[in-house]
């Protein structure tokens, strides 16, 4: 009996001691596999974090970007989410609505939260709770070919405030189109395909016309996405293609850098491509002031969240805190050219700090960026808008298309049983 007791004590001690040595918490982190440089940075961050003496190791799982959202949706449906999850901005509300995400309020200190760009917080908040924090945001503006702009004596705006007016913009477009080297004055990057980029890049024009995708107060699309402002926007947008200012079917991604187009409405990610090809001739031009001086640009990008199913919320937050440090943010944005998510990180970035080449993106995000609607019905809103825009670009009846979109969205909101304010 005594012998047995001794053995059990020894065994117990062995287990306890072994346990304390191996008391490593392993957390699983999922992220979308974007460009190579982006992948390198996150892998390096995970490795350095795991090597720190904090008892946490990171199991980094990269999933292909093309099917990322679908894979996460399937995992959510199967109750199989990791401890830390990378999500595309507009999908956050849907996951939060379903209760798959843990609010981050208890982890994020106030002074840390204040350091983030307002656009990052707008994207991460759903119904008064913060669910996601990104290390970077996106920037959307016109890239201009300086040589052509000077040739047509276009005024180059300094910042958001002195942006082109609608008249000025149309006038410059017309003159650019008359240049013999220019095939199309405007480049709308339709070669990206009919997907989220349609909503990201074209809904700011809709908003600058005074319209929107949905009434943000009542969450009803009828009267907004097919309202008079939206109709004016869509007719104008269609006319850009009808008048030959923009190519409805561009053969590839290189029209702007080959000098075949003069103004490209596209995001920050083209920075390196444009700089390498055009050098100082590639300049950034703020979103023009459209109807009633209204300006709008896109915002939102990938952000980090914590599934509510995680068993290690503290460890998960440790990792998020680590990659959200200004020094780490800079490592990422240097690799992918995006806008750093925190003011303190922006100050450290050569490109984005005051006077930096891409500071305009920061200025736009602070002043004129409009979030895509934060609602669980977003997947339907964006798909209806994409379909309508695609058809409108191809010459369909504008008001009919917008009415269809409004009907689709409102029907879905009713079907989903989304209540006001949800």
């Amino acid at each position, binding site marked *: 009996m005594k012998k047995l007791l001794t053995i059990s004590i020894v065994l117990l001690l062995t287990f306890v001691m072994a346990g304390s040595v191996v008391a490593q918490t392993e957390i699983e982190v999922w992220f979308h596999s974007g460009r190579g440089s982006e992948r390198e940075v996150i892998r390096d961050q995970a490795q350095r974090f795991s090597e720190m003496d904090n008892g946490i190791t990171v199991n980094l799982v990269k999933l292909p970007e093309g099917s990322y959202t679908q894979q996460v949706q399937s995992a959510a449906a199967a109750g199989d989410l990791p401890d830390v999850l990378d999500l595309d901005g507009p999908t956050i509300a*849907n996951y939060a609505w379903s209760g798959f995400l843990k609010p981050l309020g208890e982890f994020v200190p106030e002074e840390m939260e204040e350091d983030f760009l307002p656009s990052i917080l707008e994207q991460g908040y759903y119904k008064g709770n913060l669910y996601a924090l990104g290390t970077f945001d996106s920037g959307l503006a016109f890239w201009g070919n300086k040589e052509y702009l000077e040739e047509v004596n276009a005024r180059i705006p300094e910042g958001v405030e002195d942006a082109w007016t609608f008249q000025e913009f149309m006038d410059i477009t017309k003159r650019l189109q008359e240049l013999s080297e220019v095939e199309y004055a405007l480049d709308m990057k339709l070669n990206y395909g009919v997907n989220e980029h349609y909503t990201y890049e074209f809904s700011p024009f809709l908003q600058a016309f005074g319209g929107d995708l949905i009434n943000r107060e009542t969450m009803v699309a009828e009267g907004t996405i097919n309202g008079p402002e939206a109709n004016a926007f869509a007719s104008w947008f269609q006319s850009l293609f009808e008048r030959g200012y923009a190519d409805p079917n561009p053969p590839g991604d290189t029209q702007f850098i080959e000098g075949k187009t003069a103004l490209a409405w596209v995001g920050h990610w083209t920075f390196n491509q444009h700089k390498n090809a055009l050098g100082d001739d590639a300049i950034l031009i703020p979103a023009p002031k459209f109807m009633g001086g209204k300006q709008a640009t896109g915002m939102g990008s990938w952000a980090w969240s914590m599934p509510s199913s995680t068993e290690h919320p503290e460890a998960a937050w440790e990792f998020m805190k680590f990659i959200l440090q200004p020094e780490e943010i800079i490592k990422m944005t240097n690799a992918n050219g995006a806008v750093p998510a925190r003011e303190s990180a922006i100050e450290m970035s050569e490109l984005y700090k005051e006077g930096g080449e891409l500071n305009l993106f920061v200025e736009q995000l602070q002043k004129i960026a409009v979030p895509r609607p934060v609602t669980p019905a977003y997947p339907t809103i964006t798909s209806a808008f994409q379909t309508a825009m*695609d058809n409108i670009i191809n010459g369909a009846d504008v008001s009919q298309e917008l009415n269809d979109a409004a009907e689709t969205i409102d029907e879905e909101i009713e079907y989903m049983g989304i209540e006001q304010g949800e």
Partner: protein
Amino acid sequence: MNRSNKTVIGTFLTPAVVLLMAFMILPFVMAFVLSFTNSRLIPGPRGTQYIGLTNYQKLVEDNMFWRGLKHNFYFVIIVVPIQTSLALLLAILVNQKLKFSKFFRTFYFIPTVTAMVAVAVVWSFLYHPNGLINSFLTFITGGVWGGVDFLNTTRWAFPAIMAMSIWQGVGFQMLIFLAGLQDIPSSYYEAADIDGANSWEKFKYITLPQLKNTTTFVVISTTILAFRLFTQILVMTNGGPQGSTYTVMLHIYKMAYQRLNIGYGSALTVVFFIIILIISLLQRYLLGEQREVA
């Protein structure tokens, strides 16, 4: 049948039955059940609820579904006869004892074994306004052909996809016809030769009747495959321009995986399944497949 025989049959049947249940029957039963709910890929805070026939009512009023179905029928009516006759023609050609016939057999089959996504991407380039097909047409017409943006004009997009689908799928049907042709005993043809029949008569009175079962199979399988039209649409036009290439499968995909509306997607699947089932049974009845083994 003795006991050990039963055990043997059971042993051999089990793997097939299990797989069939797990991957065919069960998903279908689930789709049927889900079609009466508002199930979402990511369920909302109120979870999944039974909503009766709401999904089916929604379906009746869903213009995009009916438009897709119309396009599916259009596709089947044009593609099935052309693809079947072309396949038969090719099979007869490569069945001749000609030089290189083995080479051509392989050659015609290559598009079928190539992944549809890859084929569709390549054909998108071919159909581009500055692509190979337009350049070729401009060249042979001496510049009269002005170049058409095939995939972006409502008139051309669907025919362009049909042509590409026929090209891609014809090799498979050819192979089945070829097998059917090689099954016809040569003594029939020899007898016909003695009777002085010409090639056309031999084709009409021997080849065609002997290929009846094969033809039935080819027509039904081509019809089902044609109804399932999806990959090339998603890659090449995504249903556009202006919905001119929209199909039911694309609609189901969009509802279930873009709008996350699994319940409604399931209802669409059930209805579509029933439509295809009825058509297949009808075809079988009309073509009168003979079951007895020759």
